């Protein structure tokens, strides 16, 4: 276990007592891309800031690569890279110097830092931007520099706190590719997000969190199938006269959970789409099937099911 969280609790006891994190257990394996999902105020950021030594837990223990973050914060920081929610690039330094001095902070020699910074500029396609200042870059480029800087000292774990907030779709995809590439290099990535498609696209494993507790923890695929998310088939029919009987036959098909009549056709709920589609199409043939749409289950359905529809403060 590269990241190990045991019974972590954080209580803010100022004017109002707020239990931000309520005794969570999490463990992340080497080389995994782990997603921490949850609505605003679920406790994701608090968890990340405790794990990255920026905040002290009320109780519980976090170890990064076997090092306790409360007992030995300086040693733990050598093993982690952090990309916070907001832009923290050093505005008085150029992009190259941002990378260079970051390496210096972590004890690299001058020559090592220089070659590492050059290499990172190459890796993240920032060669032409080396001499620009962060304020001259677009949001997407700034985010790329931040990720490059966070992994400059070759950490074992990279923490990304809502890395795609405020990015355009292109930068978001570029960021995903960069993060997936890091997974390939053996860097463990822990990211928080509330974009479900992001978690679905890049995470090996996700945990859904709300009100300071972990509600579910598994691979995105297993979460979708075990937590009752169903594939929805919508069938448009030319004739509706035999629809009642059709619904009965559809319901008797294997792996079909239920079926119902909608205004111009039927809707079928099934567990997965493999092997179900042929049966459905065959039995609707006689009523003039002319359109079919399939909605695969998404993490979003699972997420809403677990966390509810209520609006957060």
């Amino acid at each position, binding site marked *: 276990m590269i990241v190990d969280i045991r019974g972590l609790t954080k209580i803010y006891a100022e004017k109002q007592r707020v239990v931000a994190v309520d005794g969570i257990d999490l463990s992340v394996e080497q080389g995994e891309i782990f997603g921490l999902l949850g609505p605003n105020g679920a406790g994701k950021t608090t968890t990340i800031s405790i794990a990255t030594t920026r905040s002290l837990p009320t109780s519980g223990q976090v170890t990064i690569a076997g090092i306790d973050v409360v007992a030995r914060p300086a040693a733990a920081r050598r093993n982690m890279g952090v990309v916070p929610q907001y832009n923290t690039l050093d505005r008085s330094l150029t992009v190259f110097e941002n990378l260079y001095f970051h390496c*210096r902070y*972590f004890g690299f020699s001058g020559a090592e830092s220089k070659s590492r910074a050059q290499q990172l500029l190459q890796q993240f396609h920032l060669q032409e931007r080396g001499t620009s200042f962060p304020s001259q870059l677009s949001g997407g480029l700034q985010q790329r520099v931040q990720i490059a800087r966070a992994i400059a000292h070759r950490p074992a774990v990279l923490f990304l706190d809502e890395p795609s907030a405020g990015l355009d779709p292109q930068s978001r995809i570029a960021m995903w590719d960069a993060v997936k590439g890091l997974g390939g290099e053996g860097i463990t990535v822990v990211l928080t997000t509330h974009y479900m498609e992001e978690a679905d696209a890049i995470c090996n494993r996700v945990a859904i969190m709300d009100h300071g507790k972990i509600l579910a923890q598994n691979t995105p695929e297993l979460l979708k199938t075990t937590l009752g998310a169903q594939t929805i088939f919508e069938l448009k029919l030319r004739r509706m006269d035999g629809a009642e009987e059709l619904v009965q036959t559809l319901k008797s098909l294997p792996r079909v959970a239920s079926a119902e009549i909608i205004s111009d056709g039927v809707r079928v709920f099934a567990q997965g789409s493999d092997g179900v589609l042929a049966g459905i199409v065959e039995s609707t043939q006689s009523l003039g099937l002319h359109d079919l749409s399939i909605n695969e289950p998404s993490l979003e359905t699972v997420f809403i099911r677990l966390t509810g529809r209520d609006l957060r403060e």
Partner: protein
Amino acid sequence: MSSRTSYVSAFFGLMLRDLRVLRRELLPFAVRIIMQPLLFLFVFTYVFPHMGHGDPMAAGGTSFATILLPGLMAVAIMFSGISGVALPLSQEFGITREIDDRVMCPLPVFL
């Protein structure tokens, strides 16, 4: 690497960063440091003596210049020290948050 040498190199890195930024902003820095003592000098040696009747500060045994110089030096050191540390610090911690990366250096935390 032992923790002692890693602390030293992290501190050294931070200092290099500050020196680089200082060198880049040398002119504004110099103006900020020099202007204040010059203004004080103008006020104490020109404005005040011309305000009253004669020069009350010249009445004592020691000459005014003897006490003016160390006074100005002390004021200049103290104020530029405070403004040089506290202003960037409060700005970088509060508004721009750009100090975060330096906060995450492998240096010990004293709590």
